[in-house]
């Protein structure tokens, strides 16, 4: 019996095959970009206020409201507890309401985004918590509103850290979004799984993964650069 580790029809890098699948690869990359371009900004847009809220209302925050904080904190934990597949079904009514279908790239972006929001909120909360108290104190002394403290002080000081967190999240997302394949979301990760896992076309999978690595590399390098440029502490 041959080794089942390398299935029988494993091939070395076969450029013909890659060329043949090129339109599919382009489509898959397009789907991944679509997921990224919708889900990441939405997660940042919704996760940031949520994270700020968690920070502000926490027992040591700008406006401690411990009881309410505990409720929202639990809600965030609840959202973070769902395995992706279960989240996917749990929010089917929402998905159908928003995109009119539950299958395909548009549909899978909904659970991916909902998954990313509380995740990013935790990043925001963590980054704000790590800022020193001096600047907040100065702003309070100047009679800043809480909104001003958040916008003009905290977010400004935390910006490099937030960029770093967005980078971490985006990179995680690129590989995580392979789960989109469950409901036909496609994307390059799913493409890699389809050819690598289901069809043992190692060469094709290999090529898809190289594309993913390039994408991840670009995001990581871009994110690191941007964070460093924005960081004026050195």
């Amino acid at each position, binding site marked *: 019996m041959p080794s089942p580790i390398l299935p029988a029809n494993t091939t070395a890098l076969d450029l013909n095959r890659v060329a043949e699948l090129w339109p599919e690869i382009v489509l898959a990359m397009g789907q991944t970009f679509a997921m990224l371009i919708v889900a990441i900004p939405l997660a940042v847009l919704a996760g940031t206020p949520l994270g700020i809220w968690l920070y502000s209302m926490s027992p040591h925050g700008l*406006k401690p409201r411990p009881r309410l904080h505990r409720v929202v904190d639990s809600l965030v934990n609840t959202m973070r507890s769902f395995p992706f597949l279960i989240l996917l079904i749990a929010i089917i009514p929402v998905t159908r309401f928003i995109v009119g279908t539950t299958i395909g790239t548009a549909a899978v972006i909904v659970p991916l985004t909902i998954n990313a929001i509380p995740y990013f909120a935790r990043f925001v909360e963590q980054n704000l918590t790590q800022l020193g108290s*001096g*600047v907040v*104190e*100065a*702003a*309070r*002394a*100047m*009679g*800043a*509103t809480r909104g*001003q403290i958040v916008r*003009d*002080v905290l977010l*400004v*000081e935390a*910006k*490099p850290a937030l960029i770093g967190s967005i980078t971490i999240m985006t990179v995680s997302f690129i590989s995580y979004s392979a789960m989109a394949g469950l409901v036909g979301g496609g994307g390059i990760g799913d493409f890699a799984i389809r050819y690598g896992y289901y069809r043992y076309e190692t060469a094709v999978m290999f090529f898809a993964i190289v594309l993913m690595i390039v994408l991840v590399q670009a995001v990581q390098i871009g994110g690191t650069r941007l964070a460093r440029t*924005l*960081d*004026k*502490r*050195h």
Partner: protein
Amino acid sequence: MISIRDVSTVFTTAGTDFTAVDHVSLEIPRGSIQGIIGFSGAGKSTLLRNINLLERPTSGRVSVDGTDLTALGDEELRRARHQIGMIFQHFNLLNNRTAQQNVELSLKFAGVEKKERRRRAKEALAIVDIADKADSYPARLSGGQKQRVAIARALATEPKVLLCDEPTSAVDPRTTASVLQYISDINAQLGITTVIVTHEMNVVKAIADNVAILEEGRLVERFDLAELDRPGFRPATEIGRYLISDDITLDRAARATKELSHA
């Protein structure tokens, strides 16, 4: 006018209480400059932070221009603070904003319009002689430059009350003189009430109308600066006498020989 009535501040660390400010009462007339001196750890910064309730006193009342701050709600207190400028011992500048932007921020918080902000921030930076560093981030500034930005930030809003925590600790005599001159000027012109915590006696002597001496959280002595000129005046407390004398006399017995060696 600032009126501090029977204010105490107790810090609790790991179960043990530490009284940083101990039943202090102090009336500071409107438009006057109040010096606060005392040894390190005497509670000067804490008392200063008690005035604008950055550190809410454990007990006692603080009122500014007749308004009891300790009785105000969050929103009213916030508004009241627009009239109270503060210079921090550790500057507390925003690292990711330039000098200019740091100053503009306090103007923004005070509700000043955008165009006006730019102008007044530039002006304030010029007063502390640091206009050339307007576009530098704090990390690129020297200690004294940072302090000057912090001073500009507090002065730009033209507050009614100015709380200064060692405002000239990091700057040279010339800058000190120009900062004090400015404080003294606006104090005279606008009737700003100023409280200065400092350990530099020449600052007190140059600018304060009255000086309060703190020791271990308690207010132990107070006298008008005019008294100092009165022949025969001596502070009542030992610490007062000590602080008032500016000279540092070291036991330099050991030095005589050394000086020879490298003369």
